[in-house]
């Protein structure tokens, strides 16, 4: 048995399968389909070999798929089309750790009804609303955020039929948030800790629970 924990760790899951070329091409095509703020424009005389290898088959495949969809009446019938676009959203616990209802007034978000069911007995919960100036989920996840609202609440014991150990319901109002209703994206984050546990570092401690909502806009309805 090795005594070097680092060597053991390096060997752990070391023999992973390489991605197939098709999935690499898809990833490249997806990445380079993104809008680029001030990147160089494609010029036919300056297209890289890799891009040619990837974009041309991808474009052909997209055209073929579009033709096939039209031919089968899917597009003509107004059906939803599926693009295999990778999406990454908050890791929300199954069973509804966080349930949210948005209410709008005059085209803007006026309030949010929040129900939280952490699986932490007698939990205290810290709720935060964070704001990102990003306009897409991906950039919001990757970029910096600013806490515009923070609140600590105590939970109650839910009914016997609930699988959760604690529950809290309340309303959040953008008028209470620093800066009010701004452009960009918002997210509700929460941390649930047991009695006597500090919120500091709670997210990384076993036994506590953290979660986050999807990103949402405050200014649009």
């Amino acid at each position, binding site marked *: 048995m*090795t005594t070097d924990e680092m060597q053991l760790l390096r060997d752990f899951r070391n023999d*992973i399968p390489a991605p197939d070329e098709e999935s690499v091409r898809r990833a490249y095509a997806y990445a380079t389909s993104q809008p680029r703020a001030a990147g160089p424009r494609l010029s036919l005389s300056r297209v890289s070999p*890799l891009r040619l290898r990837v974009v041309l088959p991808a474009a052909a495949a997209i055209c073929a798929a579009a033709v096939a969809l039209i031919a089968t009446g899917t597009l003509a019938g107004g059906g939803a089309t599926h693009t295999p676009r990778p999406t990454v959203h908050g890791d929300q616990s199954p069973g509804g750790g966080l349930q949210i209802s948005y209410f709008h007034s005059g085209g803007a978000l006026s309030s949010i009804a929040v129900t939280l069911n952490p699986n932490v007995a007698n939990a205290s919960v810290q709720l935060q609303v964070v704001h990102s100036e990003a306009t897409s989920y991906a950039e919001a996840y990757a970029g910096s955020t600013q806490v515009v609202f923070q609140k600590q609440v105590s939970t109650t014991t839910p009914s016997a039929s609930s699988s959760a150990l604690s529950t809290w319901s309340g309303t959040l109002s953008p008028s209470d948030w620093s800066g009010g209703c701004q452009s960009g994206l918002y997210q509700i984050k929460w941390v649930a800790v047991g009695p006597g546990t500090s919120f500091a570092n709670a997210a990384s401690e076993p036994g506590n629970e953290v979660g986050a909502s999807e990103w949402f806009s405050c200014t649009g309805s």
Partner: protein
Amino acid sequence: MGRSFDQVFESEYRPLRGYLYRRLGSSQADELAAETFAIAYRRWDDLDPSRPARPWLYGIAANLLRHQWRKERRMLRAYARSGKDQTPAQGEDASVERADAEAQKRSLAAALAELRTGEREVLLLHAWADMNDAEIAEALSLPIGTVKSRLHRARKRMRNRLAHSGQVEVKALTTTSEEPR
């Protein structure tokens, strides 16, 4: 600068996807790797030409991974309990693996699951992405001292946990060997 997005994609996509695969398994790895490079492409002009792209890329990936930490912990705990890895390696046949090696892996999964998220992040960037302290600090936007201390704590906790499971394993073997034939 001579570095283009295509060059970075060509050199870094597979290693990054491999790193993510080891963390979360196949489907998540493909999604997160693609999303990482999509963000990198959009923000390409934010990358300082004088800086290496690798820490920057892994920093983007780390931000995406932060939303998956519970899933990762669940997977590690499940592996530690059952011995069945949800991110199986290609061609690996658990049935022919030596029992002690399997026990080691389960102990390792359990030890990883018990680490704090920040410690696990630093440790796995070090072990699986072959990044040094300075690169990890840049990737995670942390002071280098914090990286060193997290790495030290993580290794210590791993070592203790593995040593503990090793003692249990040795005792079990000893007991078995002393049983009357």
